């Protein structure tokens, strides 16, 4: 019984979800020509609603979004190409209405920025790792002076020629 109910719910759910996705587009806006209508829907998804900013005009219930949806359909019926409709709207509202910003000089940082940062990070990592490997092999470190060697040996408890006072003290404690 429960399995049946679940199966029924699963069968119904896509139907339940599908109409809500198209809720913003009112029946009176829909064009009779299905090909034109589907083009209008695709274009509407590219255009930002300027009132609610992160919704497309296809999603938004704002009055301006509705006006723009109607406008898009009118332009299509007038015979505009998809690009023509988009440029009609950007001529009035600027590139900001496009949810996918165009690639041009002003948006270069936006498009190239993340890749530039990645490259910078990679270069930094390579540089850092190389530097560490160099330090490990002792490539460019200056060797200890004679005095430093003697003091180090004394501290490590090794007797050497010409022990310092510090060396003797160390030897006296735990050397014998």
């Amino acid at each position: 019984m429960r399995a049946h109910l679940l199966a029924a719910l699963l069968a119904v759910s896509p139907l339940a979800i599908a109409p809500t996705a198209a809720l913003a587009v009112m029946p009176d806006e829909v064009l009779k020509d299905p090909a034109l209508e589907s083009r209008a829907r695709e274009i509407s998804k590219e255009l930002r609603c300027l009132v609610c900013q992160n919704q497309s005009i296809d999603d938004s219930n704002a009055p301006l979004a509705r006006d723009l949806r109607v406008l898009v359909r009118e332009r299509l019926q007038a015979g505009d190409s998809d690009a023509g409709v988009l440029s009609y709207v950007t001529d009035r509202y600027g590139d900001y209405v496009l949810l996918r910003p165009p690639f041009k000089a002003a948006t270069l940082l936006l498009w190239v920025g993340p890749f530039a940062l990645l490259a910078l990070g990679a270069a930094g990592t390579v540089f850092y790792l190389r530097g560490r490997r160099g330090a490990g092999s002792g490539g460019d470190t200056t060797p200890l002076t004679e005095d430093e060697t003697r003091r180090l040996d004394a501290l490590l408890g090794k007797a050497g020629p010409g022990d310092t006072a510090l060396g003797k003290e160390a030897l006296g404690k735990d050397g014998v």
Partner: protein
Amino acid sequence: MRRLIYLLPLLLFAGVGVAFWYGFDRDPKIIPSALLDKPVPGFELPPLPGHKEGLSTAQLKGGVTVVNVFASWCIPCKAEHPIITRLSRQEGLTVRAINHKDKAEDAIAWLNRNGDPYASVGADLDGRVSIDWGVYGVPETFLVDREGRIRFKHVGPLTPQVVEEQLLPLARELSRG
């Protein structure tokens, strides 16, 4: 030289800090106008019933004009109305209006109640001309120069600060030059 690399995170942090400092100060609702420095769109709007003049492209040439987009249903429009009135009555500017998606009788009642500082009002019932002007929220105010080009746009209610610091200096400059 090697030491300088330790300054890098500090510099990066400073850079991010500066970006945020300016970024947080900006209102994401304000979108730069695509029409700035472009000629006003070609349009012709009928007058409100009982008024003589509407608004059309031809009226916006030959003198500096303030174009205010308002609606009777828009509360911020009422808030900025004394400032619009001042521009027209005291500063001697020509102020014309686009009445945005309004009922004619509501607009007339609103102007009777709050005063009518406009040289003429064009009734944009369906909001189509407003779209041509790139309007996305009322009130909006434009400054048009003598050649009929849009030189300034303000979205939202005008404030004394915007008027004193931006609109009036530019209007004076355009009237002189």
